[in-house]
């Protein structure tokens, strides 16, 4: 319990003992009300209650009819009648007396009369007409209390047709000197607006007056009207924005009288009301939104106190900020605020945080990303409400890639709580959106599970409701535009309609038949869907209209070329005409019964044995037949078929792997030695078999390999070599920790959202990301650790330099790490070397040294050219680069420009320096260099001032609409002193994948006494600069492969070398040129993964599946982003042609 509640409890002794019997003793025994209440409190059963109330009502009836009953007694009687009605027993005989009491009673009696009227009656009651005269009289009374009471009842309940009778009097009250009267008049007019908007149209100007009333209460009351008006037509009230902003500003600033405060928060509910109004005004309107940014920021800032009410305001503020035209700075603060909510240990705040997230992800799904883990935790929260809200959130971020996981979560939830209205609602609408969104990419077992869920279970009320919900929503879907619906969804719809449309009360199978027939007419409906539709029609054709319709359909499809369709049409034809047979085959009520299926087809045994005896060939399964074909070296028309690349890890390993590769890559696994190897016999066989796929890939994704082996039905074929399956990465073989499971779940839930995706999460789960280098094959692990350290950005320069020299020295890893520093030519050369001499690091190390030295001297030469007037006078010229990211400002000395690299970048792979536009102004030289950071490409622009004078007003602007560029220089560049170098750092990532982009640069500067000048340059960046290796395990690769929707296939040239298998050589070439990560090579197939830097974080993955096929490399690329496979393929092609 919150502390606030506890405080209240101690402060409220009166409430604490509310139900204690002790209190009842205080009542006077003569009080009839007292007796009633005592009686009610002592009740123990519904039956007793009924008896008691019936008795009470009889007593009341008698009393009200008595002419001797005073108004004072009548007041007590009314309260008793209110009690009875509150318990659900109608006391309609007392209504007329309530009106009488309001007419004739005085003060409190009158008030109770009005109260009873407002509780007993509603707008349509004719009794109310009797009240009109009383109300009118009271409105005109000189007694303020009477006027107040009349206005109160008018704003609660009043007959619409009688509004004109009192409207002028109410209107008049808007100018009453007492604030309470003005306020109540405004509220009464609000009520009139709600029930008869056109009757109050003429007084809109008076509302404005109320808005400007000097009393905050009157103003607040008018906001109810304005919220309604603005919600209905925001356009007409844009001019009020400034007023609303001013009012909110004043409220937030504490300008209202103290008694409007609630726990020292100024008029919080008023703030919320104003924020709502601002949201409506600023929605999709930049100009209006700009007016309110300041006050919104102020509200965010002021709401700092740790009180529920403050959070309620913050929540509303965040909602408004995300509704109005976006302003980055505000969005950021609001998002931070949501973060505080979500992470709060207070459950109510967490709920609100989830609700806020659910709201904001509709604008930007990426906002859910920072809270992935919290969301996953909430998904397993013990509080079902939190869980449900989380599902609602997931529902909003459903996309084609995470649809499978989310649907499974939904189904899980539904199984757990099948009797909840809201669950049905949530799951129902989710399934609909899920099917229409991702119907065609999801695995077939999802719709199957869903259908089973619908069909299973006893015929309880909930099940019926769920089914009815499905039928209703599908009928309305079909009545709309159906061309865009995925085929799978149409199939589900057909099945559900066929099975359950009889649940609809206004059962009209004709309508549904017509809707289904329309599906058949649709051109893009697949044959499979058509057969589902026909199946549904067969179940539905019960009345003559449907039968006629069915006949038409049958005529059309009984001549279909597709045998299945033809059969379905025949069935429909026969069953629609023979009602009796139809009733037997498809009993309307018995559909839910489980049918016994004779899966062994034993009833055919006689026929089969006869046929065999007659000399027929024994039956071969399709799979056997295909194998026979393969053995006969028949052509396989489907190069890839349905197979998934990762299935290879368990299925096809050829013995020729043994020669080329070090044994550390592939571990021997005797347990797997018999595994599915029938696929790879016959050395050169390049055919990929389809078998085993189902077993390796279950609905949960990649099944444990052991299981797939056990399940493999085909007899194992002994291989000449025991070398078989690559060892699973540790993350797969270890029992996964819950944390990791959660991260996996997160990765599958949030896949496809922005730049953070599954990959980044997997990356995080690993202790040290190893990018830019492949796994050391024979090399020392120590070296690899050190080298990965070097990619950490926060290292001191000394350490970095040490490492760098170490790297340049002699280790294999150094060559790997440095690979990207060299030019493409050098790299390819080195790659060849590498591939020929596994395990002879010294050769490569030297080569790297030579390469680096070469480029250094090159740079030196260049510096010499651009700095002809260099003098040795500056003692600071040998200063070491500063170890912080600020651009190093110093005199150019003997050191090459690369020495100006900020320390944290100096250990990283980089390109050589490219001179930029030095010809424009000889005294100013520009050059650029790319540094390949793990999470971004850093573009460095070196500005060399070759004159003695200082350059002022320096500003460097890089623009490219395909790139996201952000300046990471600590302090913005202002001036460059004579003979010094300044470096500008920008991190650059791609907005969307493209083959090559041009980065335009503009450097403006001013010489002393000179005119402002500008130097323009351009720098072209290719996709490969943005590609980073993606270190995933085979299992992860498999999961990702399934979840990516965009794919592309292409044959590429194979690289042939003397020493290596063509596949290994080719992949190595690709790896070194494009920074790909080779996940696994098995036989003639290899899987490769990379990611494209995009947005903040780790980028978009792209997976490549390569297979050697008839002297070409068949490459299959998959990625969640459509453009990436295309652009990457271009670079692969280029890389291989150059080799």
């Amino acid at each position, binding site marked *: 319990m919150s502390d606030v*509640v506890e405080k209240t409890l101690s402060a409220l002794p009166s409430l604490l003992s509310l139900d204690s019997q*002790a209190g009842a003793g205080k009542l006077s025994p003569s009080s009839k009300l007292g007796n009633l209440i005592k009686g009610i409190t002592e009740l123990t059963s519904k039956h007793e209650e009924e008896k008691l109330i019936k008795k009470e009502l009889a007593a009341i009836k008698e009393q009200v009819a008595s002419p001797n009953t005073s108004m004072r007694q009548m007041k007590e009687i009314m309260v008793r009648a209110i009690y009875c009605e509150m318990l659900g027993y109608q006391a309609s005989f007392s209504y007329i007396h309530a009106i009488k009491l309001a007419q004739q009673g005085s003060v409190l009696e009158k008030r109770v009369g009005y109260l009873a009227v407002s509780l007993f009656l509603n707008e349509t009651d004719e009794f109310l007409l009797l009240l009109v005269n009383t109300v009118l009289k009271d409105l005109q009374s000189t007694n303020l209390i009477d006027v107040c009471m009349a206005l109160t009842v008018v*704003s609660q309940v009043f007959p619409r047709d009688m509004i004109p009778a009192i409207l002028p009097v109410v209107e008049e009250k808007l100018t009453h000197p007492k604030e309470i009267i003005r306020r109540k008049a405004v509220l009464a007019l609000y009520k009139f607006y709600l029930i008869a908007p056109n009757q109050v149209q003429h007084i809109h100007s008076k509302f404005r007056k109320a808005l400007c009333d000097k009393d905050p209460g009157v103003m607040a009351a008018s906001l109810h009207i304005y919220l309604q008006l603005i919600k209905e037509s925001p356009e007409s009230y844009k001019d009020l924005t400034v007023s609303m902003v001013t009012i909110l500003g004043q409220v937030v600033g504490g300008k209202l009288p103290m008694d409007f405060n609630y726990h020292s928060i100024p008029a*919080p509910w008023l703030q919320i009301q104003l924020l709502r109004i601002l949201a409506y005004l600023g929605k999709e309107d930049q100009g209006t939104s700009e007016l309110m940014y300041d006050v919104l920021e102020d509200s965010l800032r002021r709401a700092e106190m740790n009180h529920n009410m403050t959070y309620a305001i913050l929540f509303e503020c965040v909602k408004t900020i995300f509704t109005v035209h976006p302003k980055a700075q505000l969005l950021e603060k609001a998002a931070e605020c949501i973060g505080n909510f979500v992470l709060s240990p207070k459950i109510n705040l967490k709920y609100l945080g989830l609700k806020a997230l659910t709201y904001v992800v509709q604008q930007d799904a990426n906002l859910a990303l920072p809270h992935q883990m919290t969301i996953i935790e909430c998904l397993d929260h013990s509080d079902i409400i939190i869980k449900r809200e989380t599902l609602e959130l997931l529902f909003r971020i459903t996309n084609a890639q995470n649809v499978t996981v989310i649907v499974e979560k939904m189904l899980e939830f539904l199984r757990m709580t099948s009797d909840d209205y809201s669950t049905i609602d949530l799951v129902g609408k989710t399934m609909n959106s899920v099917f229409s969104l991702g119907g065609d990419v999801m695995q077939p077992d999802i719709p199957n599970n869903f259908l089973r869920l619908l069909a299973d279970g006893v015929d309880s009320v909930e099940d019926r409701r769920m089914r009815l919900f499905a039928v209703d929503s599908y009928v309305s879907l079909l009545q709309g535009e159906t061309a865009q619906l995925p085929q799978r969804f149409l199939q589900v719809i057909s099945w559900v309609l066929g099975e359950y449309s009889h649940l609809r009360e206004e059962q009209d199978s004709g309508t549904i038949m017509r809707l289904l027939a329309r599906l058949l007419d649709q051109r893009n409906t697949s044959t499979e869907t058509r057969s589902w539709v026909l199946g549904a029609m067969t179940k539905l054709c019960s009345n003559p209209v449907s039968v006629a319709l069915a006949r038409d359909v049958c005529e059309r499809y009984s001549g279909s070329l597709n045998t299945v369709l033809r059969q379905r049409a025949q069935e429909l034809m026969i069953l629609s005409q023979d009602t009796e047979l139809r009733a037997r085959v498809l009993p309307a009520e018995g559909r839910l019964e489980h049918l016994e299926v004779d899966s062994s087809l034993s009833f055919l045994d006689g026929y089969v044995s006869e046929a065999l005896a007659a000399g027929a060939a024994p039956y071969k399964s399709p799979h056997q037949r295909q194998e026979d074909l393969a053995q006969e070296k028949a052509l396989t028309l489907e190069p890839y078929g349905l197979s998934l690349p990762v299935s290879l890890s368990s299925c096809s390993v050829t013995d020729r792997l043994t020669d080329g590769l070090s044994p550390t890559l592939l571990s021997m696994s005797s347990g797997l030695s018999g595994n599915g190897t029938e696929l790879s016999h016959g050395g050169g066989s390049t055919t990929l078999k389809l078998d085993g796929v189902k077993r390796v890939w279950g609905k949960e994704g990649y099944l444990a390999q052991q299981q797939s082996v056990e399940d493999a039905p085909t007899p194992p074929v002994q291989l000449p070599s025991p070398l078989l399956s690559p060892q699973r990465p540790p993350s797969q073989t270890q029992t996964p920790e819950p944390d990791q499971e959660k991260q996996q779940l997160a990765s599958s839930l949030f896949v496809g959202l922005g730049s953070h995706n599954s990959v980044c999460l997997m990356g995080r789960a690993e202790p040290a990301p190893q990018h830019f280098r492949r796994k050391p094959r024979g090399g020392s692990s120590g070296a690899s650790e050190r080298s990965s350290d070097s990619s950490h950005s926060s290292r001191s320069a000394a350490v970095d330099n040490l490492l760098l020299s170490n790297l340049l020295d002699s280790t294999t890893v150094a060559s790997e790490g440095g690979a990207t520093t060299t030019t493409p030519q050098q790299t390819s050369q080195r790659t060849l070397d590498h591939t020929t001499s596994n395990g002879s690091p010294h050769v490569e190390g030297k080569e790297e040294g030579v390469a680096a030295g070469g480029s250094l001297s090159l740079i030196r030469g260049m510096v010499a050219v651009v700095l002809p007037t260099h003098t040795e006078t500056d003692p600071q010229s040998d200063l070491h680069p500063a170890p912080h990211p600020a651009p190093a400002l110093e005199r150019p000395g003997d050191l090459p420009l690369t020495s100006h690299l900020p320390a944290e970048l100096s250990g990283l792979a980089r390109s050589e320096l490219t001179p930029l536009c030095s010809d424009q102004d000889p005294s100013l030289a520009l050059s650029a260099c790319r540094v390949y950071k793990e999470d971004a490409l850093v573009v460095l622009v070196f500005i060399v001032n070759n004159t003695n004078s200082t350059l002022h007003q320096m500003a460097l602007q890089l623009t490219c609409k395909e790139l996201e560029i952000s300046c990471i220089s600590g302090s913005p560049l202002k001036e460059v002193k004579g003979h010094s170098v300044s470096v500008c750092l920008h991190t650059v990532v791609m907005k969307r994948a493209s083959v090559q982009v041009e980065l335009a640069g503009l450097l403006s500067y001013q010489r002393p006494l000179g005119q402002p000048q500008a130097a323009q340059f351009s720098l072209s960046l290719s996709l490969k600069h943005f590609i980073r290796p993606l270190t995933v395990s085979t299992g992860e690769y498999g999961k990702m492969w399934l979840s990516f929707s965009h794919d592309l296939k292409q044959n590429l040239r194979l690289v042939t070398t003397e020493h290596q298998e063509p596949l290994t050589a080719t992949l190595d070439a690709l790896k070194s040129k494009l920074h790909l990560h080779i996940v696994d090579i098995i036989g003639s197939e290899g899987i490769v993964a990379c990611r494209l830097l995009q947005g903040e974080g780790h980028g978009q993955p792209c997976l490549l599946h390569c297979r050697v096929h008839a002297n070409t490399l068949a490459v299959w690329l998959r990625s969640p982003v459509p453009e990436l496979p295309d652009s990457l393929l271009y670079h692969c092609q280029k890389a291989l042609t150059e080799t």
Partner: protein
Amino acid sequence: MIKFLLMVNKQGQTRLSKYYERVDIGKRPFLEADVVKGCLSRKKEECSFVEYKDFKLVYRQYAALFIVVGISDTENELSIYEMVHNFVEVLDKYFSHSELDIMFNLDKVHIILDKMIQNGHIVETNKNRILAPLLALDQMSEPH
């Protein structure tokens, strides 16, 4: 918008009910029983907002008394949660030290509530202003 406000004791007996959306008298007891069941079954550490059919419930417990508010989905739950507390504070201010006040002054509790909520909207939260008319009524009724 607020759909209804209930005050219920732990036994599930309704102490006060006010509907801002029309619900037939015959159906109210069932709705109330259902709503109360939904709230009473919740643990203390669970959140104070419950989804119920197509609307939400915000509930707050004061010893043996539950106050449950039914609201539409667009309403700000936490602000309603605090409004309940404001209501309780007003009640406390008015009925300072008299037991069973709420039960025996059902009419006055209703009058107070009418000042605070109308047509499902919070129309007044200023405690002094909420109580002023009622105090005036009381004064005028004294001579009787």
